């Protein structure tokens, strides 16, 4: 009995190996798809790492200088000197400002009152007005913040300040320059990996159903669990290589440090990739055509992951129901993990909860896969 059991186990292992080899061949022979699978995450992470940021720089503003006096001149010079703004020199009457906004030429306008210098000298105070384009609220707010800071600074330096000043000195921890990459790379990584992994395996089993090879596999000693594992392993390896490429590029090209422990990051990533691959396989198991599988994977997942992963919109602001939905999104957990390990240098002790959730999800999905796997051709 014991030897028989052993023989069975080794048979299962060789099943698996041979199946994995087969899957690798499928993967390697479709060069176009392989190229996209490899290129896509790397290019996207790199591109978005370079491009995405919340910095404000050289934003075009108009100063409506009704004062045209020494103070206003000095203030304009000060604004121009900062790297945040480019002051458009062509002055506009106040009525034309809306049009300038509408055409998208400017993002903000600063209106200096006629009696800027005189009022300052007389009353020691005056009020200027900032107009921003609030269609992009975040940008508008940041611009207001920067402009206000410059003006406050200007009035302090000019010795016009009131007494009793409480000046906050602000330090940005972990990401002092508020660069985009540390913000966006973990989020994009979580999102791209999720979608690519899910899509890869979403077609894997349903394709065999469509081509009819599933029939032959079913009438063989091959067990469902082997089919599922064999479908996942090659993509796990591919995704792991992808991950290494992403990390390599983000440390070299994007200058993103990995403060924490690299093996931990790799281990957590492998866990996350497994979760996504299992989700894909589940989709593949319950659908009948490649087209349906792909539509579910893409239309069904793209927007929700983008919006609920937490890197676009803060989860704590969402209504409870949506928060619950966000907690069911694997990328939400992985996003926290990547951020904490890479940028904060956190260890497993800080991340065991997230890890446990991902592991739980994977097990649940895997169990569902086994349960839903149809060992016959009958429709359910």
């Amino acid at each position, binding site marked *: 009995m014991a030897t028989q059991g052993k023989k069975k186990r080794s048979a299962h292992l060789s099943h698996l190996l041979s199946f994995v080899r087969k899957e690798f061949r499928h993967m390697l022979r*479709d060069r*176009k*798809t392989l190229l*996209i699978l490899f290129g*896509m995450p790397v*290019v*996207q992470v790199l591109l*978005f790492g370079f*491009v*995405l*940021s*919340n910095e*404000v720089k050289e934003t075009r503003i108009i100063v409506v200088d009704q004062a045209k006096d020494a103070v206003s001149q000095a203030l304009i010079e000060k604004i121009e000197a900062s790297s945040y703004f480019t002051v458009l020199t062509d002055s506009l009457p106040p009525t034309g400002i*809306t049009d300038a*906004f509408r*055409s998208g030429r400017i993002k903000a306008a600063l209106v200096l009152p006629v009696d800027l210098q005189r009022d300052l000298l007389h009353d020691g105070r*005056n009020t*200027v007005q900032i*107009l*921003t*384009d*609030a269609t*992009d*609220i*975040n940008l*508008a707010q*940041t611009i207001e913040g920067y402009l206000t800071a410059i003006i406050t600074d200007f*009035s*302090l330096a000019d010795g*016009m300040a*009131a*007494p*009793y000043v*409480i000046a*906050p*000195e602000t*330090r*940005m921890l972990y*990401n002092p320059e*508020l660069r*985009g990459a*540390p*913000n966006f790379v973990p989020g994009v990584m979580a999102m791209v990996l999720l*979608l690519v992994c899910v899509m890869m395996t979403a077609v894997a089993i349903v394709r065999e159903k469509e081509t009819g090879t599933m029939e032959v596999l079913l009438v063989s000693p091959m067990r469902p669990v082997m089919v599922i594992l064999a479908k996942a392993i090659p993509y796990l390896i591919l995704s792991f290589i992808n991950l290494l490429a992403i990390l390599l590029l983000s440390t070299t090209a994007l200058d993103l440090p990995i403060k924490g422990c690299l093996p931990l990051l790799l281990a957590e990533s492998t866990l996350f990739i497994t979760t996504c691959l299992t989700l894909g396989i589940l989709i593949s198991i319950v659908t009948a055509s490649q087209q349906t599988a792909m539509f579910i994977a*893409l*239309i*069904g997942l*793209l*927007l*929700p992951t*983008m*919006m*609920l992963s937490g890197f676009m*919109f*803060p989860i704590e*602001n*969402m209504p409870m129901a*949506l928060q619950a939905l966000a907690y069911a999104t694997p990328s939400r957990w992985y996003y*926290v993990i990547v951020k904490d390990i890479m940028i*904060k240098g956190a260890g497993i002790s800080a991340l065991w909860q997230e890890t446990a959730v991902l592991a739980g999800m994977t097990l649940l999905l895997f169990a569902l896969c086994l349960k839903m796997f149809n060992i016959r051709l009958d429709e359910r």
Partner: protein
Amino acid sequence: MSVLPVLLRKEFLQIFRNKAILMISVAMPVLQFIVLPMAVNYEFKNINLAVVDHDRSDLSRRLIDRITGSGYFRLVDHAASYAQAYALIESDEADIILQVPSGFEQRLVREGMEEVFVAVNAINGMKAGVGSAYLTSIIAGYNRSVVEDLMPGAAPAGIAVTSSGLFNPERNYKISLLPSILAIMITIVGGMLSALNIVKEKETGTIEQINVTPIRKRDFILAKSIPFWILANVVFTIGLLVIYLFYGVVPQGSLLLLYGFVGVYLLAVMGFGLLVSTYCTSQQQAMFVNFFFIMIFIFMGGLFTSLNSMPVWAQYVARFNPLTHVNEVMQLVTLKESTLRDILPNLLAVAAMAVVLNVWAVLNYRKTS
């Protein structure tokens, strides 16, 4: 009977017969669109604040009360030391540390100037920026009241700043983002449907049957895009209704203009999908290629991070991104009541893309090998 209506009829029949795909491509996006906008909210209500008050004076206590009373911050801890507070940041329990130095009150009254120290967890850039801005403005407000207390009657000096946001004065994120998210939705739906359709005929082999008929390539491509164009417009319309019914957002500008632009825009998106379709041999390939570009379109479209913040080269590249234009137009028309004249550059750019992509797709579709 001319050929195009015949082809169109066939496409429609097939679309409506495949209920699964129809459900996924119409019902799923609409459902998502009802639920997901609830996530659109950058306004931070509960920024976790750790306070290190070394002064423990009257003034410092009033400052802290004012901050916690603002509604934006939640006091998580009065830490004894900065190191303790920092630990809270590390464990993600706190987002911001406010440290008041000892002798704060004394120095403020005696020297007329004092600094407080603010440390922000800047990993989440958005929260860091918004949080520190809130904090700064609360401190400034407190500052004014301190001045009034200490020098009753004296007006605060210096240049005060008032600000107002045009077009969206209440700074409602839903108004500014929902139309653009709707645009993303129709891009995904339209792009995917058109990208997979021709490839599917290739995979099942029915394209051979089409290729031995005298159907003109132009008619074939048109027949493949018009139904999905209409379907995407239906999704768009339902989306607008959802925005209105569930979120009360009404486009300020002309609906006609909006539809006109979206119509042209969809032609460009479908042209892209069809082009992908003519290059690919399997649905899987088509989907991956299309997905790759849609992701780039979305993230470089200026919606989630402003174009303004991107490197200059990326801003040029973004002009070739149809989603950049649709985002701009959505905001121009729905919020700024822009007219045709304002959106003309966008319209022309998208129209040019539509022409180039569709012509390219027609040329690249081969009836004969």
